[in-house]
């Protein structure tokens, strides 16, 4: 079997990982806001940056997978 057959499996794993990560972020932020509604702005601000870093890693993985498939 060709090696590129397994590349889409990697894409799926990336999506699972990123989804779990983002899900945990959202859950923690929602819980925090529910406990302290007055701190909503601060919590959103603190969640934003790691969220985008996580998203960046996922996107990087997708780009590399895409490159592997076309090259």
């Amino acid at each position, binding site marked *: 079997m060709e090696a590129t057959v397994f590349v889409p499996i990697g894409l799926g794993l990336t999506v699972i990982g990123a989804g779990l990560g983002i899900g945990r972020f959202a859950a923690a932020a929602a819980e925090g806001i529910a406990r302290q509604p007055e701190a909503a702005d601060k919590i959103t601000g603190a969640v934003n940056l790691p969220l*985008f870093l996580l998203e960046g890693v996922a996107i*990087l993985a997708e780009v590399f997978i895409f490159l592997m498939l076309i090259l």
Partner: protein
Amino acid sequence: MSAVETGHASQSVMEQVGPNIIHHVSNSDISHPLYHIPPLFGIDFSVTKHVLMLWIVAFLVGIAVITPVRKFLSSNKTTPSGWMNGIEAIVQFIRDSIVKPNVGPKWVMTWTPLVLTFFFFILFANGIGMIPIFDVLGAFNRFVLDVPASDSHNMINNILHGGVTATGNFNVTAGLATITFFSIMVAGTMAHGFINHWKNLAPHGLAWPVYIILIPIELMGLFVKPFALTMRLAANMTGGHIALLALLSLMAIFGEMFHSTIAGVGVAFVAIPIAVAISALEIIVVLVQAYVFTLLTSVFVGMAINVHH
């Protein structure tokens, strides 16, 4: 989208879909630029589709942002009105919620102009990618003026080569990230002096074996930051458009698979609502990516200024 008609008739639809999607999101072919300029110092300066889009974006930012701001500053009013009111809200949000918490009150006014420039440029470049002006022009050209797709001397046919999202091109975002890369260094140098800025890369006062691992990691991090910025913006802008086009191509694929027009039309009832939903998501992505780029630029600049190891 004219994705299906532009390929060669001898190929099957399945073989045409992939290249057509790539064609729609990538820059114009280097052998078919809009305007050919002979290479200077070994660099090809030909005007391609994305170069044209960069100019259009620069022009639009000029008339939509720079001119109103200049006009407001030269008038003696203290409160803005109309369009300028909206711009002020954005400017204030970026200064107070993005730049100030990251860079610190001392350097806000030094770095806000750069971050604002990034924000407006990326926002407009992303936003124009969502408006299918050239596709509409192409459809008008094809069906109203009856110009065949193979006519390579037709101006509008030439414009149709390549996508319209300039920020979906890795070279454009790499250029933007290079500005971030150097502004990180300039920020550190301005705040701590040249020697101290480089010393600040690694924390002080650790046992010496740690530095053997730490210094290469920090040096790598120096390049990984702008690289991640490049990839994030370009891949996000390209990815959404690929998803949209792939969904719309399903109509052609199903039509061919079952050898009937009805299958294609039937799939359209599913594919088009999903494509509309993805377009709505893309509008959010347009805003979020402009926000992310500015946020991360100010975070990186702030990391060079406020060293807290």
